[in-house]
């Protein structure tokens, strides 16, 4: 015959197990949530970084292109303003060297 008191003890034991189990599940859920959040956050950051990397690459390409254009233009300006080019152009346009120089 089962004593009433024994039944109560068992009931109490079951109740305490349920409480621990509930806490454990809660902890697990929280951990899972944190992991999931961190994983998601990492994904977001990694994605952003990947996009930023691409942007940086584009900016670097642009800088390189501007520098290249700058070098080409400087060379072009130097060539066009060289004395050999200017004197040739002046000659073609009919300019003549002054035969007499007057100083005041």
């Amino acid at each position: 015959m089962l004593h009433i008191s024994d039944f109560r003890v068992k009931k109490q034991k079951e109740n305490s197990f349920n409480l621990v189990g509930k806490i454990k599940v809660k902890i697990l859920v929280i951990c899972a949530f944190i992991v999931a959040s961190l994983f998601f956050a990492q994904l977001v950051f990694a994605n952003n970084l990947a996009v930023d990397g691409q942007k940086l690459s584009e900016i670097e390409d642009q800088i390189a292109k501007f520098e290249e254009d700058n070098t080409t233009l400087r060379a072009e300006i130097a060539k066009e303003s060289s004395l050999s080019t200017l004197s040739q152009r002046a000659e073609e346009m009919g300019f003549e060297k002054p035969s007499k120089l007057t100083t005041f």
Partner: protein
Amino acid sequence: MDRIKIFQIIIFTAAIFIIARLFYWQFIAQVTSSGEINSAQIIPASRGEIFTNDDFPIVADQEAFLLYAKPHEITKDSQELAKVLAPSLISEKYATSGAAFLPDLQKQKEEEVKQLQTNIFAHLADKNLFWVQLARKLPKDIKEKIQTLDISGLGFEKDKKRFYPEASMAAHLLGFVGLNKFGDDTGYFGLEGYYDQRLKGQPGRLGRDRDPLGFPILVGRYRTVEPKKGDSLKLSIDRTMQFIVEQKLEQAVEKYGAKEGTVIISDPKTGQIMAMATYPNYNPNLYQEYDGSQYKNPAIANTYEPGSVFKLITMASALDMSLVDPNTRCDICSGPRQIAGYEISTWNKKYYPNSTMTEVIQHSDNVGISFVADKLGIDRFYEYILKFGFREKTGIDLQEEADGAIRNKKDWKGIDLVTSAFGQGIAVTPIQMVQAVQAIANRGVLISPKIVAKIIANSKEEIVKPGEKRQVISAKTAAQITEMMVNAVEKGEAKAFVPKGYKIAGKTGTAQIPLAGHYDPDKTIASFVGFAPANDPKFVMLVLFNQPSASIFGSETAAPTFFEIARELFNYLGISQAND
């Protein structure tokens, strides 16, 4: 199957997929991405520019490209591809405006194209080669032309190339940039050679991690070292003066049928070189097309017997020692004289008994100068030769300077004293002669010549200190020898060419060239050295012709050229007749 097992299978499959993908990125993709991931890439440094004194870049860097091929990726027929590429990759000399009209050059071009075609085909046909270089230093327009052909397996890498906006102007002075045995850009000759370490800068290194698509991984490690651009040089060279000199020199060399001509112009107060030219010259852009003997700058690397110009040094030495004065009379000048079996005579066999020292310089009298040499003696004369800077490098900032050829004093005999007094039997460089005459123009103070006025490093200007200074002769002696030089110009052989209204100090020189142990009477070095205005010199100039054929004399070749250039300089520098 319960749900847990299904879930386990999904997790396991995903893990396998992730591991497989990671393996691919880590090992397979890295190997095939031409080593760009995690690898250090060299960033070439721009070479410093060279500016004339008006801030014009006489030498600059230009974008250029290296063309490479990956033979295993080429799908087009190699023979046909070589045929398409070869005409674009030949020397730039065929692209010059005049080249199309020269039949010889056209024939040479065809041969070069054929040769290059064979070489390219040999490279492309070898499918074992992963990467092969087809050409370097290609200009941008050629790169764009090849790119439009859209050929798979060809690629370009960025490179730099020297660019000379004024083409061959001051070529000997500037030098050029070529490739050393490791394939790196290196400066040779002139300023490029002398200042190579400062001009070339330091290449950088791109050590940033990149993903397989080539984008930088921002969380990766940064190990980038930025390239350091080479220092730039600002010269004392005046571009306009250089242009005038080169034009006049070319005309004169052709007019007088000379083998070669050299002109140096300097500022006597600072020792800075304002113009330095030699004709014929070469195009530094196409230096490979010229014979190697043309690379050296004759103005600093060649030695010559100065002839009568050296009488200035002899006379200045004797005046400085107070052994003679301008009015001292030569008592042995009535005819030729014999020394150790050699006859010392005048160039035109005319003799001037009892001529003064001023007249000795005016007539360029060999017998008269032998009279001065006797008074000096070997020891004192030799000492002054050294004081004037002969037999040692001037210290000019150019790579290939020679130190002249003057024998040891102990080997000198009586005849050497006399012949050296009129500039035969000794060899000097043109720049040494300019340095010595600069001392006369600068009240007896010798200043070592320099070409670079400033070095620009990291946007900061570093002023190059003037060369060594020393008092060689007294100011009084300098004034006396200047007056003698003015007299020589006004009453000498070349007086007809002198610009009117200007006081110019100068001296002609005609030296025979030693050949196989004797002097060839028909081959001479004709020169004229001087400065103007004589009382406040703004420039010192040396004009020198090697073996002029129209006339062997300096008074008929170098002197007229000197005065013609001087006339242009008076206008350019705003030196009026009234100022004198």
